[in-house]
């Protein structure tokens, strides 16, 4: 027989048989792996690559005010989607598309010939106008689809712009509530899937699969559109009248921390946010800006002193000589010559700085700063808005007699408007410090049911009801008899406090003649329902006093709100007092042509704000004959006499 033994052949046969059997087992293992273990991953990967899905964009949730008024709406604005494999003549189609949307032929061709299941022409093909959409529909080209999409519509234009924020080209929230509540608003994308063969050609014989998009939830705000528009209007007027560097206002329900209105200037239109500088839309001033509050902060000192029973507003008196010496420094009252002997209630009405220094000293640094912190200063209020600042307080070890004194009347501390409003709300509502908020809840877009709602968050009980009631009484007299008389409303009981805050310049010193004038007020004073804060930064052509600029605006806002909301008029309110400080009002003398040196010696009850070079006054503001409060500033321009 052969030289190779039969045994060898048999062994070879067995080996080959076993090897191939082993290969079968490996193959079976591989198939089982693909089917059982790797299955999810492969399918997910494939889905991503090959879904012939025309996207159906979810409708973004609307933003509504507390009464259901639509603040941010949607408008149909389809998106151009192409299925490159279905395009018959890409060059021709590219040419046609270039005529309709702002895209070059080359760019369009790149999209049309891209190796992709579905290509979105981005950004030129997004948010098409109705006209563009019609033209594209009329092309009637295979492979060209209009995907359902929408864009934001702002029925109230600029109203509440900073709070609302805006969205980008893909309807993604970029700023404001649109950004911070993007998850809730955006919803889930759906798709129209069609069956196609390997080349992406549509197979019309087979039915399409439609998976509907899930619309985003509506956002329900605490904002009241009516109040908001009153505020917006008043800020517009203030802007036109005073040409300020900025202005802001907040309206809050003091009983729960709900923000009813919030606005600032300069503002912008959310649909055209790109037309303003980023600082304008980035900064929501009511929560972003920090400055030394000035006299409105005295409410905190007052409430603290009352809570500690350190003062009886009616019985205790304080003598103001016009200044007070603290740690070797002289702290002047804003009213040159001082207010003389006054009860502490009058100290509040007159906003007398030395009087509040005295209250601060009575409290001592530990207690005063404990109250300041308890009222929420030095930390974020936790409002549900982006970009909140926390302000700056003196550290305990930094506080000397001077720091204690200035803090007592609102200088040397840096706070945000929302902190002040939140703190004052606590001071007048019985002592309850709430976390301020603007988002009240989420609403299901289909059923209209509230699916999530936020309750007020009580953070701290700061003062007692009795103290709070004393604070309200004192502040009501400020409006009736003191610096806040500009906000007085006949028949309604209004309480409030003005503020004239000095601004720190870039060199660390206080700026001359550049103030933030403010007013914080509430009504009705016996049971406050509305708390308004208004601040105007560097108003021009006016005396920069809170009582002159801000309190009338505050009064106007409060009055309009009360009337609009049918708040019943009150009886037993305080009568407005007219004698003070009208009496010390002085007539502005004619200064043009006078020598500046001479003026400085004899003009004692007015202050001069000198501009220009030279010795002789060539123009002045206010003009001669106008009545101004004593101590007011007269702006004069110097020049050559000829």
């Amino acid at each position, binding site marked *: 027989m052969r030289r190779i033994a039969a045994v060898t052949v048999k062994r070879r046969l067995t080996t080959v048989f076993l090897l191939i059997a082993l290969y079968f087992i490996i193959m079976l293992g591989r198939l089982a792996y*693909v089917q059982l273990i790797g299955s999810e991953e492969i399918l997910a990967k494939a889905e991503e690559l090959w879904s012939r899905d025309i996207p159906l964009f979810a409708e973004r949730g609307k933003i509504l005010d507390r009464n259901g008024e639509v603040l941010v709406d949607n408008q149909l604005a389809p998106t151009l989607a192409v299925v490159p494999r279905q395009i018959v003549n890409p060059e021709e189609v590219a040419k046609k598309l270039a005529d309709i949307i702002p895209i070059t032929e080359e760019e369009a061709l790149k999209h049309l010939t891209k190796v992709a299941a579905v290509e979105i022409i981005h950004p030129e093909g997004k948010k098409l106008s109705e006209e563009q959409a019609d033209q594209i529909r009329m092309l009637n080209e295979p492979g060209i689809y209009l995907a359902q999409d929408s864009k934001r519509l702002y029925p109230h234009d600029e109203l509440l712009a900073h709070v609302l924020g805006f969205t980008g080209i893909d309807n993604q929230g970029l700023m404001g509530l649109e950004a911070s509540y993007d998850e809730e608003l955006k919803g889930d994308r759906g798709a129209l899937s069609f069956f196609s063969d390997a080349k992406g050609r549509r197979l019309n014989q087979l039915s399409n699969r439609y998976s509907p998009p899930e619309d985003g939830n509506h956002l329900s705000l605490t904002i009241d559109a009516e109040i908001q528009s009153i505020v917006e209007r008043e800020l517009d007027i203030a802007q036109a009248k005073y040409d300020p560097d900025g202005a802001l206002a907040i309206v809050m329900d003091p009983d729960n921390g709900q923000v009813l209105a919030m606005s600032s200037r300069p503002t912008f239109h959310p649909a055209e946010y790109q037309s303003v500088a980023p600082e304008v839309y980035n900064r929501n001033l009511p929560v972003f800006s920090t400055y030394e509050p000035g006299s409105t902060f005295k409410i905190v000192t007052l409430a603290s002193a009352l809570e500690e029973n350190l003062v009886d507003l009616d019985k205790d008196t304080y003598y103001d000589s016009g200044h007070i010496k603290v740690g070797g420094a002289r702290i002047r009252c804003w009213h040159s010559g001082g207010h003389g002997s006054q009860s502490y209630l009058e100290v509040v009405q007159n906003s007398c700085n030395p009087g509040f220094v005295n209250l601060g000293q009575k409290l001592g640094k530990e207690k005063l700063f404990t109250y300041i912190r308890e009222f929420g200063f030095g930390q974020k209020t936790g409002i549900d808005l982006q970009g909140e600042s926390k302000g700056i307080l003196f550290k305990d070890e930094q506080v000397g007699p001077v720091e204690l004194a200035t803090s007592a009347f609102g200088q040397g501390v840096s706070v945000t408007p929302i902190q002040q409003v939140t703190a004052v709300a606590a001071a007048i509502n019985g002592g309850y410090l709430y976390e301020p908020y603007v988002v009240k809840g989420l609403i299901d877009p289909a059923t209209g049911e509230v699916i999530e709602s936020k309750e007020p968050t009580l953070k701290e009980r700061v003062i007692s009801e009795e103290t709070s009631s004393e604070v309200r009484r004192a502040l009501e007299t400020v409006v009736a008899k003191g610096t806040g008389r500009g906000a007085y409303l006949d028949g309604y009981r209004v309480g409030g406090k003005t503020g004239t805050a000095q601004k720190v310049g870039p060199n660390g010193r206080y700026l001359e003649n550049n103030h933030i004038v403010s007013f914080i007020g509430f009504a009705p004073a016996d049971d406050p329902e509305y708390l308004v804060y208004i601040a105007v930064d560097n108003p021009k052509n006016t005396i920069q006093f809170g009582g002159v600029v801000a309190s009338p605006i505050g009064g106007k806002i409060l009055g309009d709100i009360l009337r609009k909301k049918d708040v019943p008029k009150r009886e037993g309110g305080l009568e407005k007092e007219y004698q003070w400080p009208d009496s010390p009002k002085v007539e502005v003398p004619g200064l043009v042509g006078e020598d500046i040196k001479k003026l400085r010696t004899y003009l004692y009850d007015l202050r001069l704000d000198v501009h220009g070079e030279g010795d002789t006054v060539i123009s002045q503001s206010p003009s001669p004959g106008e009545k101004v409060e004593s101590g007011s500033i007269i702006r004069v321009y110097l020049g050559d006499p000829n």
Partner: protein
Amino acid sequence: MKKHLKNMDYPLLVIILLLSLFGLVMVYSASFVHAGLDPNVNDPAFYFKRQRLWLILGLFVFFFMSMFSYRRLGQLTPLLFLITFLLLLAVIIPGLGVTRNGATRWLDLGFFLLQPSELAKISMVLYFAYALTKKEDRLDSFNKGLLPPLLLLLGVFTLIVLQPDFGTAASIMIACGIILLFAGAKFIHLLGLGSVAIVGALLLILGADYRRERLTSFMDPFADPSGDGYQLIHSLIAIASGKINGVGLANSVQKSGFLPEAHTDFIMSIIAEELGLIGVLFVIISFMVLMFKGVLIAKRAPDQFGRLLALGITFQIISQAIINMGAISGLLPITGITLPLISYGGSSLLITFAFLGILMNIAIKGNIVRGYNREEEVDNSKEKQFKAAR
């Protein structure tokens, strides 16, 4: 005739019928969407009807071949080989070959597209078994024994690779290699030939762009999803969709145009999708049984030619199956080879049935010989008893 039927290997027949009927059902399931939508065909049952016809024809071929003595077939081998070689040459002559999907593999006979590489499978296996049986005592000598058939194999292989049809060429190579292994070639020769084959295969793969790309795409199909990875991705999607029980017969999504060649090269993917792991197990176990039966028949073959032929046939079929299933599951590069007995395709089915008919003939011959021996044994014992009784 009666003796033939009596000595048939019925388990083998059952396996063959099971696989081919299962294939017919799957061809229908995999092709009806495609066929129904194709404006040239416009009949969902188009491929089913044709495959049914081929199956009936195939069964005739099978029974004919199972009765046609394989020894007489051996004598026809030189003629058959010559015809095959000429046909393969004809295919690569420009103008004569029919090109589809970038491969020139067919000759148009008017009523039928002939695929000479299918014929080459049968010719080469027959020739190798025949030649190596004749040269049995010269096999120790490389030059005199092995070289002539190897040169012819290389010629046929080259012609098929030129088409290009690397998968078929590779399966022929494997079948012939196995015949060589069992014919009794020296181990050192086999080792040398094996090394040459591996180096050659590597050179071939790296030499042609499309093969290199297929190689890389089977390693990472998702790297080029719309190009080279396309088929494999859809094959994997189909398989992955199947899970254990499958999506149900006729319910495949991938066949509706996503997976090209769903009823031919990728029918196994559709089986995995529609029938799940259960379907996969059925097919793989059936092929393993087929292999086992083939080896058993070879062992019982009455002579060396029958033994080598049975092994060549068995491993020709099995190598096609493993190349095909390896390709659809991403274990091997995609070469465009069908799954024997199951995939749609006339040439392929007829040749496979012819193969299996020959295998059956060897089995019958083996059974008859063994049967005679057994009968003789029985007779002997009776005689002995008879003698003892006397």
